[in-house]
Structures are given as structure tokens and as C-alpha cells.
């Protein structure tokens, strides 16, 4: 007698909405992550465009200083914690089990918990605009004592929100590490693992290593702001100089997390690029081991560079020198990646479909962001450009032009696997070109503004020389906004009448394309034995050798 061993699902779990609310399927959770993060992206993007309007000309009276400082703070915090990291976590959720031939992540329920913590943490942050005194106003870095002195409850909600998001990320990181260590399919040794999985593996370790420091720093910040439990009031003075504390201590705690966070956002983006470029160049990645090892090296060194954000606090120059050298060391594995991607293009059969356009756009933009980082690492130069628009330009080249372009490459590339339909090429090209042009028009002039002396985080300026660049930048931001509307239109159109494609529309190399599109709940009926880093390429070649099989277009 056959026994049905599947767990019983209550009827209410099967509804159209309810099934998404109670799901523990890594694919659905991944899609939830991405959809929620894109919604936050819309909000954070609107905030950015409002700030650009305020700065379009001198003495604009659109946003007051308090509103501007709120937007500066929440835009930065949201883009990092609610957009870039969660989309990457979402792609990781969707892809890692499929790429390693597993049925799900190691702890599916924990996975659902981390998604819901993220969603609620994000809500706390966004709703803090309605708090007493408005949202937090001290920038995404929340430097003490500015952040400890703000009387409003927005700063407390900001801390609460980051605490929730930290718990979410930790749970997710544990899940990724356990899954990748233990659940790879037969034959998938470490050096046969897709490079995206490598990047998620290091991403997860970095989160594990650095988030506790952030939590400690933020808890100290919260206690410094004063707590009141059941009529019992207490206040600490970790960062309060008047009582013997040190404001610089907070900066160490924050940046020990804050710099690796940059690589938490960059490494999975590198992973996406390492998947997309070979497929659209019809070649294997050049130097697989070098690319994988450079990921590990970047992860390791990223924990040794934090004080390059603190070159102006007056540390001894011996320390400044140390952090300059470590920061420059990171440029080496990063350069290795860029050269390997270029070498992958070399002699390829390049196909310029939208995922490839975004990957190439990433390469050209990220190079600029990486190179401007060398200036910042050379600390006497940093004494000039620190906390100016040069830095704003630099990190937008790295995070928006880098990570977000890679994310779009990934979304266009894996969309067929997620939904079985392919995003429209024509709208995709409009999306890419408007975003690419708008991005450079917005952020390139900001380098120049910074060199001319415009500090970041100012709600207005009136020195008579900065209007040209600022107006250019504002115009660019609206070009980007229009480009993103094309993406929204593309998604909407594909949703209604997208072209259905097969399981492997790009003739790609990795295991996720072996599953159906979209994959069934259990992912695979069977997984082929993995003999290289490109199992599907091997499969196609064996089929071709056996019976002259040619994959359909």
C-alpha cells in the first residue's frame, strides 16, 4: 500500500494570495524579496529625484532643511538595506538551490522568516516619516552625537528597523552557508560551483562576520539616546564626550560593518556578471579559479579597510597609511575580475541582448567607480574630496552603476526562469540606454562638483559656481527616471502578454536552466551528474556528439 508521506497542507494555504503568504518555497520567497525590494526602489528613487530637484538651482525652496535631511537619510538607508541587498538576496534565494541542483534551501521556514523580517523592517523605516519629529535626519551613517541628540523618535525607529533587517540578513546568511556547504548535487565540487554561488557564499560569510558589530554599535547608539522601561530611565554615554565617551568609537563600529557592506552589495553583482558575460559571449569564463579566488580575497580584505572612511577624523598617519595600503590591495583582485571579464569577451561571439547590454554597461561604469576609489584611498587626496560630491559620485558609480546594472542584467537574464516568459527586447533596450545615459549625465558632473568644493548632504548652496553641474545632474536624474519607467512598462507588458520561451532560451551553462521554466516546487525530477563548472554545456555537447542534436532557437 502506498503511503502519502507529503505533509498535509491546510486548505486555506492553497489560495492565490494565501499560498504566497505562507510559502516556504525558495523560489517564491526569492520572487517576494525581489518584488518587495523593487517597490522600495520606487520610493527611494522618488526621494532621490526630489532631492535633485531641490539642488537643481541655488536657493530652491522645495524642501526645507529638515525634510531634505530626512530624504538624504532614508534614501541612502533604503537603497542599501531595502533595495540592493534584498534584491541580491532574492536572486540568491531563487537561484542558489537551482544552481547547485538542490530541492530547496537548508532551512525553508527560516528562509520565510528572514523574508518577513525584511518586509516589516522595511515598513518600519518607511513609516518612520510619520513619527513624532519625522524620520531620522542624521544620514545613513547616523554619526553620533548628531544622531544621539535628535529628539524625535524617527532615529529610534531607524535603529529598530536596522536591527530587524540585521536579524533578517543573519538568518538568510546562515541559510545560504549551510545550503551551499551541504546541498550541492553529485559531482559539484567547489571548483565546479557556478561563480554566482561563490559570490553568494562569500556574501553570506561577510554578513555573518560584520553585522554583529553593526548591531553592537546601534545598540550603544540606542542606549546613548536614553531608554525608558516601565518608568525606569537610563542613558549611557558611549559616544558622549562630555561624560568621557568617544564619538569616533561609533564610527569604528559602523564602518567595520559599513565597508564590507559595500562588498556585500558588490560581490553578488560580480557573480551575476560572471554568469551573464560567458553565456552572451558563447565562451567559458576566462580564469574561473582566478575569478572565484578573487571573490574570496575581496571578501577577506574588505574587513581590513574600514578606517578609510575616517581619514579626516585625525587618526595617526601611520594608521591612515595602513588603511591606504589595505584599500589599495583590494583593487588588485577587483582588477583581476575586470580583466578576466574582458578576456572572456575576447574572440567571443557577442550577442547584444538586454542582459548583455547591462553587463557591458556595468563593466564600463564600474571601472570608473573602482578607479575613483584609488583617489579616495590615497588619504591626502581624501582629505580634499572626503564628504564631498566626489564621494557621492564614486559610490553611485559603484552601487547604482555597478550593483544595480548587474541586478538588471540578472533580472533580464533569469526572468524566463522565474516566469517562463522573456522580457521585451525593444523596451529593454530603451530601458538600458536611457538608464546608461541618464546615469552618466547625473553622476559624472558630481565628481567635478566635489572637486570644486561642494560638500555632500547640503540642502542648498549659493556660491554662484555650482549651478551648471547641478542642473546637468538633475536633468540626468529625470532621464534615469524615464528609463526606469520603461522597465516598469516592460514588466507590465510581459506580465500580460509576454512571449513564452523554453527552459533554456539563452543556451546557458548552469544547472538552473535544466529545470523547467518556471521550475516545479521540487525543482528537478533528476539532476545530471556534474562534470564541470558548465554542466549544461557538457550536456549539449554530449547530445550533439551522439545524435547531431541542435538546440532550437
Amino acid at each position, binding site marked *: 500500500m502506498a503511503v502519502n508521506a507529503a505533509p498535509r497542507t491546510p486548505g486555506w494555504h492553497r489560495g492565490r494570495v494565501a499560498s504566497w503568504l505562507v510559502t516556504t518555497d525558495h523560489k517564491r520567497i526569492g520572487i517576494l524579496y525581489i518584488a518587495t525590494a523593487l517597490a522600495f526602489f520606487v520610493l527611494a528613487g522618488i526621494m532621490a529625484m526630489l532631492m535633485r530637484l531641490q539642488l537643481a538651482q541655488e536657493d530652491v525652496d522645495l524642501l526645507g532643511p529638515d525634510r531634505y535631511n530626512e530624504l538624504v537619510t532614508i534614501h541612502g538607508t533604503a537603497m542599501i538595506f531595502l533595495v540592493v541587498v534584498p534584491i541580491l538576496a532574492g536572486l540568491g534565494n531563487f537561484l542558489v538551490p537551482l544552481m547547485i541542483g538542490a530541492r530547496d534551501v537548508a532551512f525553508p521556514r527560516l528562509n520565510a522568516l528572514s523574508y518577513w523580517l525584511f518586509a516589516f523592517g522595511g515598513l518600519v523605516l518607511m513609516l518612520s516619516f510619520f513619527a513624532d519629529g519625522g524620520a531620522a535626519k542624521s544620514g545613513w551613517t547616523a554619526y553620533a552625537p548628531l544622531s544621539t541628540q535628535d529628539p524625535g523618535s524617527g532615529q529610534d525607529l531607524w535603529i529598530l528597523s536596522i536591527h530587524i533587517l540585521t536579524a533578517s540578513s543573519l538568518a538568510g546568511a546562515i541559510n545560504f552557508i549551510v545550503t551551499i556547504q551541504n546541498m550541492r548535487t553529485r559531482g559539484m565540487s567547489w571548483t565546479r560551483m557556478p561563480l554566482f554561488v561563490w559570490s553568494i557564499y562569500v556574501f553570506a560569510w561577510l554578513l555573518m562576520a560584520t553585522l554583529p558589530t553593526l548591531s553592537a554599535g546601534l545598540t550603544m547608539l540606542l542606549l546613548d539616546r536614553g531608554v525608558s522601561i516601565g518608568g525606569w530611565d537610563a542613558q549611557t554615554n558611549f559616544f558622549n564626550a562630555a561624560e568621557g565617551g568617544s564619538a569616533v568609537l561609533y564610527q569604528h563600529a559602523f564602518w567595520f560593518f559599513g565597508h564590507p557592506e559595500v562588498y556585500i552589495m558588490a560581490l553578488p553583482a560580480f557573480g551575476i556578471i560572471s554568469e551573464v558575460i560567458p553565456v552572451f559571449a558563447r565562451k567559458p569564463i576566462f580564469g574561473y579559479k582566478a575569478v572565484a579566488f578573487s571573490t574570496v580575497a575581496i571578501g577577506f580584505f574588505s574587513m581590513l579597510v574600514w578606517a578609510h572612511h575616517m581619514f579626516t577624523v585625525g587618526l595617526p598617519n601611520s594608521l591612515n597609511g595602513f588603511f591606504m595600503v589595505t584599500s589599495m590591495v583590494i583593487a588588485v583582485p577587483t582588477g583581476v575580475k575586470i580583466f578576466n571579464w574582458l578576456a572572456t569577451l575576447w574572440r567571443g561571439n557577442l550577442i547584444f541582448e538586454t542582459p548583455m547590454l547591462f553587463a557591458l554597461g556595468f563593466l564600463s561604469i564600474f571601472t570608473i567607480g573602482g578607479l575613483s576609489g584609488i583617489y579616495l584611498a590615497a588619504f591626502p587626496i581624501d582629505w580634499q574630496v572626503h564628504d564631498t560630491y566626489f564621494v557621492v559620485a564614486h559610490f553611485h558609480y559603484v552601487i547604482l552603476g555597478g550593483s544595480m546594472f548587474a541586478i538588471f542584467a540578472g533580472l533580464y537574464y533569469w526572468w524566463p526562469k522565474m516566469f517562463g516568459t522573456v522580457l521585451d527586447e525593444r523596451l529593454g533596450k530603451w530601458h538600458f540606454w536611457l538608464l546608461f545615459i541618464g546615469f552618466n549625465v547625473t553622476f*559624472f558632473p558630481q565628481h567635478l562638483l566635489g572637486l570644486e568644493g561642494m560638500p555632500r548632504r547640503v540642502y542648498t548652496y549659493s556660491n554662484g559656481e555650482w549651478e551648471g553641474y547641478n542642473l546637468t545632474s538633475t536633468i540626468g536624474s529625470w532621464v534615469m527616471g524615464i528609463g526606469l519607467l520603461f522597465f516598469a512598462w516592460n514588466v507590465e507588458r510581459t506580465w500580460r502578454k509576454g512571449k513564452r520561451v523554453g527552459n533554456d532560451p539563452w543556451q546557458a551553462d548552469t544547472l538552473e536552466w535544466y529545470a523547467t521554466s518556471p521550475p516545479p516546487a521540487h525543482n528537478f525530477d533528476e539532476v545530471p551528474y556534474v562534470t564541470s563548472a558548465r554542466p549544461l554545456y557538457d550536456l549539449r555537447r554530449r547530445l550533439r556528439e551522439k545524435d547531431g542534436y541542435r538546440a532550437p532557437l
Partner: protein
Amino acid sequence: MRALLVLAGLLLLAVALAPAALGGNGGFAPVPPESPNAARIHDTWIFVSIFIVAIFVLVEVLLATFIWRYRRQRRERFEDGPQIHGATNIELMWTVAPVIVLFLIGGFVFYKLPGIAEVPSASASGEERLEVRVTGRQYYWQYEYPNGAIAIDKLRAPAGIPVRLEVTAPDEDVIHSWWIPALGGKIDAIPGITNETWFQAERPGTYDGQCAELCGLEHANMLASVEVLPATEFAAWLEERDRERASIELGEEEWQGVCAKCHGLGGEGGIAPQISGSPVLTNPQELEEIVRNGRGEMPAVGSGWSEEQMDALIAYLRETPPSGS
């Protein structure tokens, strides 16, 4: 597709040129230096730029060339390229080459560093350096000279003589950052910590800058400037400030730097309420009480002020009560 690429190329070129055309001359290097430390930072910038521009051109030209040279053309959509998996020698080459470049950059930084960071004790002709204490406060800069004279927001300095600045912030204030781009890099003004920086401007003139660390609502208006005067003129000014400790001039600086940033130049109100016509302004006791201790949302902007400093403000307000509305 080809048309699109050409179009994009032209647009990018326009992007690269437009800001230069719109923004006048500048922005491709730090502002022209007027002090030896700023000049050495400028040299470092130029040195680093040689490599940065070279690597930038190398990578982007390779990228563009490969995109053009290896585009699909008439090949089949899924035709494989050559199955090249890598080459150890090449990997070694592009690992070692950047190390050499970074070694050169790092070496140059350390070579220039003493001339940037070390404060000279006297000018070349032997005049001893001047020491000024710079205190960053929400939202003004206060300068104290060795003889006890005080100035707000505008720092006067003698030409040709090194000026050493001790930069700090009061314990109960927040972090600010002192920065006059033409006179060198920035240094943070942190509660409880005293940092130092310096400049030595040869040419008289006024050099502008502003606070570079988010310090609250009026961060954007926390401007600073350095007026470099010929040495004799400076000495006369300093003596005058010292003799008239409670001068109307200081009172005016205090009104403009300390009060007007929130209340408006004419007291007409800004992020803080209108105060023109308020009886507090002409009542010395009440004015002192509110300036020293703050009230409601107003911070204690004048905590720690000397008697003379307070008298200067009182005298200025008595003479020219703000009348904006």
C-alpha cells in the same frame, strides 16, 4: 543597433563636454592651491591621475574594441566562440602589474606626506607661526587668537606666515569638519578631540569653504572663509580686536554667524521664528540667558562665551536692531 551605438557614443561625448562648458573652467582637479599643503595634495592628485587615466583608457578602449570586433555579425546566434579557459601567465601579469602601479602611488603619497601633514614652525624668512583655535559649533565657526581676540566665521590670517589651527568642537556639540579647499584638506572638529591642520597663504585674498560633515539642519549654511591680509594689516586688525574686545564689529559677526543662520539676517525668521522687534533683543539679561542656555528647540549657541563676547552682541543689537519682517 549600429545606429544606436553611434548615437550613444555621441551622447556620452556630449555628456563629458557639457559640464565643462556649463560649469566654467573647473572641476577636473581640486581647486587651485594657495598653500603648500594644498599644493602637495594637488601634486599627488596629478600623479595618481596619470595612472588612473591610463588604466581607464586601457579598459574602456579594450571594452569598446572587443564589443566592436567580436560582435556576432553573420555568425549563428548560438555559435560557440573558442573554448579558452584561461592562462596562468596572463593572470599573473594582470595581478602583478596593478601591484606595481599601487606601489608607485603609495610611495608617492608617503613621499609627499611630511610636506602636507607637518606644520612648519616658522616661515622661510623666520617669522614664527600663528596659532588659532578653531571651534566648530552648530552652525558657526569661532576663532580664538593667542591674545584672546575672537572672530566668527571669517578667519583673518597674515600672508606668508604659517598658521596652525587647533580644530575642535565643544563637548555638548556635534561633529563638524573644517575645510577651505584652496588651503588644504579637511579635518574634523570632534567633541572631546583636538585635531590640527595648517596653511600658509602667500597671496592676500578671501578663500571660501564650508563645514563638510553633516551637523544638523543648517549644515548647508555653516560657511567659513579665510581672509588673508598683508602681515602688517593683519597685525593692526588683531590689535584692534584685542583692544576692543566687545566691539560692534564682533557683535555683527556674531549676529550674522550665530543668530541670523536660523532667524534670518533681518531677524525675519527662517527655520527659527521671527525675532525682529522682539523685546528680548534689547533686554541684556534676557538675551544673555537665552543665548547662553538656549530655550525650547533653540540650542545653547552661546554657552561658554566670554563676558566681552556677550557684550559685543548686546551692543550690536542695541545699535542696529534687526528690522526685517
